[in-house]
Protein backbone atom coordinates (compact mmCIF):
# COMPACT_ATOMS: atom_id res chain seq x y z
CA UNK A 1 0.00 0.00 0.00
CA UNK A 2 1.45 3.37 -0.97
CA UNK A 3 1.81 6.01 1.70
CA UNK A 4 -0.93 8.68 1.28
CA UNK A 5 0.27 12.11 0.16
CA UNK A 6 -1.15 15.37 1.50
CA UNK A 7 -3.71 15.63 -1.32
CA UNK A 8 -4.95 12.12 -0.48
CA UNK A 9 -5.22 13.12 3.17
CA UNK A 10 -7.14 16.27 2.22
CA UNK A 11 -9.54 14.21 0.13
CA UNK A 12 -9.93 11.72 2.97
CA UNK A 13 -10.45 14.55 5.46
CA UNK A 14 -13.08 16.29 3.37
CA UNK A 15 -14.90 12.97 3.16
CA UNK A 16 -15.13 12.79 7.00
CA UNK A 17 -17.73 14.09 9.38
CA UNK A 18 -20.22 15.21 6.75
CA UNK A 19 -23.52 15.60 8.55
CA UNK A 20 -27.07 15.37 7.31
CA UNK A 21 -28.21 18.62 5.68
CA UNK A 22 -31.66 18.51 7.32
CA UNK A 23 -30.14 17.94 10.75
CA UNK A 24 -27.78 20.84 10.16
CA UNK A 25 -30.57 23.18 9.07
CA UNK A 26 -32.60 22.19 12.12
CA UNK A 27 -29.57 23.00 14.28
CA UNK A 28 -29.20 26.38 12.59
CA UNK A 29 -32.86 27.17 13.26
CA UNK A 30 -32.44 26.09 16.89
CA UNK A 31 -29.39 28.35 17.22
CA UNK A 32 -31.33 31.36 15.92
CA UNK A 33 -34.21 30.58 18.27
CA UNK A 34 -31.84 30.16 21.22
CA UNK A 35 -30.15 33.48 20.44
CA UNK A 36 -33.47 35.32 20.47
CA UNK A 37 -34.69 33.47 23.57
CA UNK A 38 -31.56 34.43 25.51
CA UNK A 39 -32.28 38.08 24.83
CA UNK A 40 -35.92 37.75 25.86
CA UNK A 41 -34.99 35.74 28.98
CA UNK A 42 -32.68 38.53 30.14
CA UNK A 43 -35.43 41.10 29.74
CA UNK A 44 -38.03 38.89 31.44
CA UNK A 45 -35.64 38.30 34.37
CA UNK A 46 -35.23 42.04 34.96
CA UNK A 47 -38.94 42.78 34.53
CA UNK A 48 -39.91 39.98 36.90
CA UNK A 49 -37.56 41.07 39.67
CA UNK A 50 -38.16 44.80 39.28
CA UNK A 51 -41.90 44.18 39.01
CA UNK A 52 -41.78 42.13 42.20
CA UNK A 53 -39.79 44.67 44.19
CA UNK A 54 -41.31 47.98 42.99
CA UNK A 55 -44.79 47.50 44.51
CA UNK A 56 -43.26 46.96 47.96
CA UNK A 57 -41.65 50.42 47.73
CA UNK A 58 -45.01 52.06 47.07
CA UNK A 59 -46.87 49.96 49.60
CA UNK A 60 -44.01 50.12 52.13
CA UNK A 61 -45.13 50.06 55.72
CA UNK A 62 -41.81 51.52 56.98
CA UNK A 63 -38.37 52.92 56.08
CA UNK A 64 -36.52 49.59 56.39
CA UNK A 65 -38.68 48.03 53.66
CA UNK A 66 -37.98 50.98 51.34
CA UNK A 67 -34.21 50.86 51.94
CA UNK A 68 -33.92 47.08 51.47
CA UNK A 69 -36.17 47.19 48.38
CA UNK A 70 -33.95 49.87 46.83
CA UNK A 71 -30.86 47.79 47.64
CA UNK A 72 -32.42 44.75 45.95
CA UNK A 73 -33.39 46.86 42.93
CA UNK A 74 -29.84 48.15 42.54
CA UNK A 75 -28.47 44.57 42.85
CA UNK A 76 -30.92 43.31 40.20
CA UNK A 77 -30.02 46.04 37.73
CA UNK A 78 -26.29 45.54 38.37
CA UNK A 79 -26.51 41.78 37.77
CA UNK A 80 -28.52 42.30 34.54
CA UNK A 81 -26.13 44.93 33.25
CA UNK A 82 -23.13 42.66 33.97
CA UNK A 83 -24.79 39.75 32.13
CA UNK A 84 -25.53 41.94 29.11
CA UNK A 85 -21.97 43.29 29.01
CA UNK A 86 -20.61 39.78 29.30
CA UNK A 87 -22.69 38.60 26.33
CA UNK A 88 -21.61 41.54 24.21
CA UNK A 89 -17.98 40.79 25.05
CA UNK A 90 -18.43 37.16 24.07
CA UNK A 91 -19.88 38.25 20.72
CA UNK A 92 -17.00 40.55 19.89
CA UNK A 93 -14.52 37.77 20.71
CA UNK A 94 -15.66 36.00 17.56
CA UNK A 95 -14.07 38.43 15.17
CA UNK A 96 -10.58 38.69 16.65
CA UNK A 97 -7.54 36.49 15.87
CA UNK A 98 -6.71 33.46 18.06
CA UNK A 99 -4.08 35.23 20.17
CA UNK A 100 -6.36 38.19 20.90
CA UNK A 101 -9.18 35.71 21.41
CA UNK A 102 -7.14 33.75 23.95
CA UNK A 103 -6.11 36.93 25.77
CA UNK A 104 -9.74 38.05 25.90
CA UNK A 105 -10.83 34.58 27.00
CA UNK A 106 -8.22 34.65 29.77
CA UNK A 107 -9.36 38.12 30.85
CA UNK A 108 -12.95 36.93 30.65
CA UNK A 109 -12.30 33.79 32.72
CA UNK A 110 -10.40 35.84 35.33
CA UNK A 111 -13.25 38.37 35.44
CA UNK A 112 -15.79 35.55 35.79
CA UNK A 113 -13.77 34.01 38.60
CA UNK A 114 -13.63 37.38 40.35
CA UNK A 115 -17.39 37.76 39.82
CA UNK A 116 -18.09 34.31 41.32
CA UNK A 117 -15.78 35.03 44.27
CA UNK A 118 -17.52 38.37 44.76
CA UNK A 119 -20.94 36.72 44.54
CA UNK A 120 -19.91 34.23 47.21
CA UNK A 121 -18.71 37.09 49.41
CA UNK A 122 -21.85 39.16 48.81
CA UNK A 123 -24.18 36.20 49.31
CA UNK A 124 -24.11 36.27 53.14
CA UNK A 125 -24.94 40.01 53.52
CA UNK A 126 -27.53 39.69 50.71
CA UNK A 127 -29.29 36.89 52.59
CA UNK A 128 -29.28 39.02 55.77
CA UNK A 129 -30.68 42.05 53.86
CA UNK A 130 -33.38 39.86 52.32
CA UNK A 131 -34.35 38.39 55.70
CA UNK A 132 -34.56 41.90 57.19
CA UNK A 133 -36.59 43.02 54.15
CA UNK A 134 -39.05 40.15 54.52
CA UNK A 135 -39.19 40.57 58.31
CA UNK A 136 -39.85 44.28 57.98
CA UNK A 137 -42.84 43.52 55.73
CA UNK A 138 -44.30 41.46 58.57
CA UNK A 139 -43.56 44.01 61.33
CA UNK A 140 -45.97 46.79 62.21
CA UNK A 141 -43.79 49.37 63.92
CA UNK A 142 -40.42 49.07 62.13
CA UNK A 143 -37.18 48.29 63.97
CA UNK A 144 -38.72 47.59 67.41
CA UNK A 145 -40.95 44.91 66.04
CA UNK A 146 -38.43 43.51 63.50
CA UNK A 147 -37.48 40.33 65.42
CA UNK A 148 -41.14 39.35 65.68
CA UNK A 149 -41.62 40.12 61.95
CA UNK A 150 -38.66 37.90 61.02
CA UNK A 151 -39.97 35.10 63.26
CA UNK A 152 -43.37 35.38 61.63
CA UNK A 153 -41.85 35.29 58.15
CA UNK A 154 -39.61 32.33 59.11
CA UNK A 155 -42.66 30.32 60.12
CA UNK A 156 -43.91 30.41 56.51
CA UNK A 157 -43.03 27.50 54.20
CA UNK A 158 -42.03 29.91 51.41
CA UNK A 159 -39.28 31.31 53.68
CA UNK A 160 -37.66 27.86 53.92
CA UNK A 161 -38.14 27.30 50.20
CA UNK A 162 -36.38 30.62 49.58
CA UNK A 163 -33.48 29.70 51.88
CA UNK A 164 -33.20 26.29 50.19
CA UNK A 165 -32.94 28.06 46.83
CA UNK A 166 -30.15 30.26 48.23
CA UNK A 167 -28.34 27.15 49.49
CA UNK A 168 -28.55 25.56 46.02
CA UNK A 169 -27.29 28.82 44.52
CA UNK A 170 -24.26 28.80 46.84
CA UNK A 171 -23.49 25.21 45.82
CA UNK A 172 -23.81 26.19 42.15
CA UNK A 173 -21.44 29.11 42.70
CA UNK A 174 -18.83 26.80 44.27
CA UNK A 175 -19.18 24.42 41.31
CA UNK A 176 -18.84 27.30 38.89
CA UNK A 177 -15.74 28.50 40.76
CA UNK A 178 -14.10 25.06 40.42
CA UNK A 179 -14.90 24.96 36.68
CA UNK A 180 -13.60 28.46 36.09
CA UNK A 181 -10.34 27.64 37.82
CA UNK A 182 -9.96 24.60 35.59
CA UNK A 183 -10.81 26.66 32.50
CA UNK A 184 -8.24 29.25 33.51
CA UNK A 185 -5.54 26.56 33.82
CA UNK A 186 -6.47 25.15 30.38
CA UNK A 187 -6.41 28.62 28.80
CA UNK A 188 -3.03 29.39 30.34
CA UNK A 189 -1.66 26.13 28.99
CA UNK A 190 -3.12 26.88 25.52
CA UNK A 191 -1.66 30.35 25.67
CA UNK A 192 1.78 28.85 26.31
CA UNK A 193 1.29 26.52 23.30
CA UNK A 194 0.50 29.52 21.09
CA UNK A 195 3.48 31.46 22.44
CA UNK A 196 5.78 28.51 21.69
CA UNK A 197 4.31 28.15 18.20
CA UNK A 198 4.69 31.88 17.54
CA UNK A 199 8.36 31.80 18.54
CA UNK A 200 8.86 28.92 16.12
CA UNK A 201 7.03 30.87 13.39
CA UNK A 202 9.67 33.58 13.53
CA UNK A 203 12.49 31.06 13.88
CA UNK A 204 13.38 31.87 17.48
CA UNK A 205 13.31 28.18 18.45
Amino acid at each position, binding site marked *: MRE*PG*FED*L*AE*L*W*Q*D*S*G*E*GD*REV*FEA*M*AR*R*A*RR*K*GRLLGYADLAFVLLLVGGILPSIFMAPNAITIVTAILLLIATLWVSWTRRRHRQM*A*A*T*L*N*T*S*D*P*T*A*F*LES*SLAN*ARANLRRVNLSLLVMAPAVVVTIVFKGSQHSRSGIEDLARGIAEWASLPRAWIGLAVVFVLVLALFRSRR*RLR*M*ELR*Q*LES*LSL*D*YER*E*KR*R*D*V*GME
Partner: protein
Amino acid sequence: MGLLYRIALSYEADPALRHELVQDILLAIWVALANFRGEASVKTFAASIAQKRCISHVSKRAREPRQVELSTDLPSAAELPDEQALRNDQKRHLVESIQQLPVPQREAIVLCLEGFSFGEMATILGISPNAVMLRCQRAKATLKAIMEGRS
Protein backbone atom coordinates in the same frame (compact mmCIF):
# COMPACT_ATOMS: atom_id res chain seq x y z
CA MET B 1 -21.95 22.65 6.55
CA GLY B 2 -19.29 19.93 6.24
CA LEU B 3 -16.60 22.44 7.15
CA LEU B 4 -18.15 23.16 10.55
CA TYR B 5 -18.65 19.46 11.27
CA ARG B 6 -15.05 18.67 10.35
CA ILE B 7 -13.60 21.51 12.42
CA ALA B 8 -15.65 20.26 15.38
CA LEU B 9 -14.49 16.73 14.63
CA SER B 10 -10.85 17.74 14.98
CA TYR B 11 -11.52 18.94 18.55
CA GLU B 12 -14.18 16.57 19.87
CA ALA B 13 -14.25 12.79 19.52
CA ASP B 14 -17.51 12.23 21.41
CA PRO B 15 -20.42 12.45 18.90
CA ALA B 16 -22.91 13.85 21.44
CA LEU B 17 -20.50 16.55 22.61
CA ARG B 18 -19.56 17.25 19.00
CA HIS B 19 -23.23 17.79 18.18
CA GLU B 20 -23.44 20.31 21.04
CA LEU B 21 -20.24 21.95 19.82
CA VAL B 22 -21.64 22.40 16.29
CA GLN B 23 -24.79 23.87 17.83
CA ASP B 24 -22.63 26.23 19.87
CA ILE B 25 -20.68 27.24 16.74
CA LEU B 26 -23.92 27.99 14.90
CA LEU B 27 -25.17 30.14 17.76
CA ALA B 28 -21.85 32.03 17.83
CA ILE B 29 -22.05 32.61 14.06
CA TRP B 30 -25.62 33.88 14.44
CA VAL B 31 -24.59 36.31 17.22
CA ALA B 32 -21.49 37.45 15.31
CA LEU B 33 -23.28 37.97 11.98
CA ALA B 34 -24.22 41.47 13.16
CA ASN B 35 -20.49 42.30 13.15
CA PHE B 36 -19.78 40.76 9.72
CA ARG B 37 -18.56 43.51 7.40
CA GLY B 38 -17.73 41.32 4.41
CA GLU B 39 -13.96 41.89 4.64
CA ALA B 40 -13.41 38.15 4.23
CA SER B 41 -15.53 35.46 2.61
CA VAL B 42 -18.40 33.93 4.59
CA LYS B 43 -16.49 30.63 4.61
CA THR B 44 -13.43 32.30 6.18
CA PHE B 45 -15.66 34.14 8.67
CA ALA B 46 -17.46 30.92 9.67
CA ALA B 47 -14.21 28.94 9.93
CA SER B 48 -12.68 31.66 12.09
CA ILE B 49 -15.60 31.56 14.50
CA ALA B 50 -15.70 27.77 14.50
CA GLN B 51 -11.98 27.56 15.39
CA LYS B 52 -12.44 29.93 18.31
CA ARG B 53 -15.55 28.19 19.60
CA CYS B 54 -13.56 24.95 19.50
CA ILE B 55 -10.73 26.53 21.49
CA SER B 56 -13.31 27.66 24.04
CA HIS B 57 -14.75 24.17 24.06
CA VAL B 58 -11.32 22.63 24.69
CA SER B 59 -10.60 25.07 27.52
CA LYS B 60 -13.99 24.46 29.15
CA ARG B 61 -13.83 20.69 28.88
CA ALA B 62 -13.73 19.29 32.38
CA ARG B 63 -11.90 16.09 31.54
CA GLU B 64 -9.68 14.81 28.79
CA PRO B 65 -11.68 13.79 25.73
CA ARG B 66 -13.03 10.28 25.69
CA GLN B 67 -11.71 8.30 22.77
CA VAL B 68 -14.88 7.19 21.05
CA GLU B 69 -15.05 5.00 18.02
CA LEU B 70 -15.87 7.15 15.01
CA SER B 71 -19.00 6.12 13.23
CA THR B 72 -18.39 4.27 10.01
CA ASP B 73 -19.97 5.78 6.94
CA LEU B 74 -22.50 3.95 4.86
CA PRO B 75 -20.75 1.85 2.21
CA SER B 76 -20.69 3.47 -1.19
CA ALA B 77 -22.11 1.49 -4.10
CA ALA B 78 -19.09 2.49 -6.14
CA GLU B 79 -16.65 0.85 -3.79
CA LEU B 80 -16.13 -2.70 -2.71
CA PRO B 81 -16.76 -3.40 1.01
CA ASP B 82 -13.05 -4.12 1.58
CA GLU B 83 -12.05 -0.81 0.02
CA GLN B 84 -14.73 0.99 2.04
CA ALA B 85 -13.49 -0.64 5.24
CA LEU B 86 -9.92 0.37 4.43
CA ARG B 87 -11.01 3.93 3.68
CA ASN B 88 -12.98 4.17 6.93
CA ASP B 89 -9.95 2.88 8.78
CA GLN B 90 -7.76 5.51 7.11
CA LYS B 91 -10.29 8.24 7.98
CA ARG B 92 -10.38 7.16 11.61
CA HIS B 93 -6.58 7.01 11.68
CA LEU B 94 -6.35 10.53 10.21
CA VAL B 95 -8.95 12.08 12.53
CA GLU B 96 -7.46 10.50 15.66
CA SER B 97 -3.99 11.68 14.64
CA ILE B 98 -5.25 15.23 14.06
CA GLN B 99 -6.91 15.21 17.49
CA GLN B 100 -3.50 14.53 19.03
CA LEU B 101 -1.82 17.61 17.52
CA PRO B 102 -1.20 20.68 19.71
CA VAL B 103 -4.06 23.16 19.19
CA PRO B 104 -2.09 25.81 17.21
CA GLN B 105 -0.85 23.16 14.76
CA ARG B 106 -4.24 21.45 14.70
CA GLU B 107 -6.05 24.58 13.55
CA ALA B 108 -3.42 25.16 10.86
CA ILE B 109 -3.57 21.61 9.49
CA VAL B 110 -7.38 21.55 9.48
CA LEU B 111 -7.52 24.76 7.44
CA CYS B 112 -4.82 23.35 5.16
CA LEU B 113 -6.80 20.13 4.64
CA GLU B 114 -9.92 22.21 4.00
CA GLY B 115 -8.11 23.87 1.11
CA PHE B 116 -7.87 27.43 2.48
CA SER B 117 -5.18 29.59 0.89
CA PHE B 118 -2.27 30.87 3.01
CA GLY B 119 -3.79 34.35 2.74
CA GLU B 120 -7.16 33.18 4.08
CA MET B 121 -5.45 31.17 6.80
CA ALA B 122 -3.43 34.24 7.76
CA THR B 123 -6.71 36.15 8.20
CA ILE B 124 -8.20 33.40 10.35
CA LEU B 125 -5.09 32.75 12.44
CA GLY B 126 -3.99 36.38 12.75
CA ILE B 127 -0.42 35.68 11.65
CA SER B 128 1.51 36.46 8.44
CA PRO B 129 1.15 34.18 5.38
CA ASN B 130 4.83 33.30 5.79
CA ALA B 131 4.26 32.20 9.37
CA VAL B 132 1.22 30.23 8.20
CA MET B 133 3.37 28.39 5.68
CA LEU B 134 5.95 27.51 8.33
CA ARG B 135 3.28 26.41 10.79
CA CYS B 136 1.63 24.21 8.18
CA GLN B 137 4.97 22.57 7.40
CA ARG B 138 5.54 21.82 11.07
CA ALA B 139 1.98 20.58 11.48
CA LYS B 140 2.34 18.28 8.46
CA ALA B 141 5.59 16.89 9.85
CA THR B 142 4.04 16.31 13.30
CA LEU B 143 0.95 14.72 11.75
CA LYS B 144 3.12 12.42 9.64
CA ALA B 145 5.12 11.40 12.72
CA ILE B 146 1.94 10.69 14.71
CA MET B 147 0.40 8.69 11.87
CA GLU B 148 3.57 6.66 11.39
CA GLY B 149 3.82 6.10 15.15
CA ARG B 150 0.25 4.82 15.25
CA SER B 151 0.54 2.43 12.32
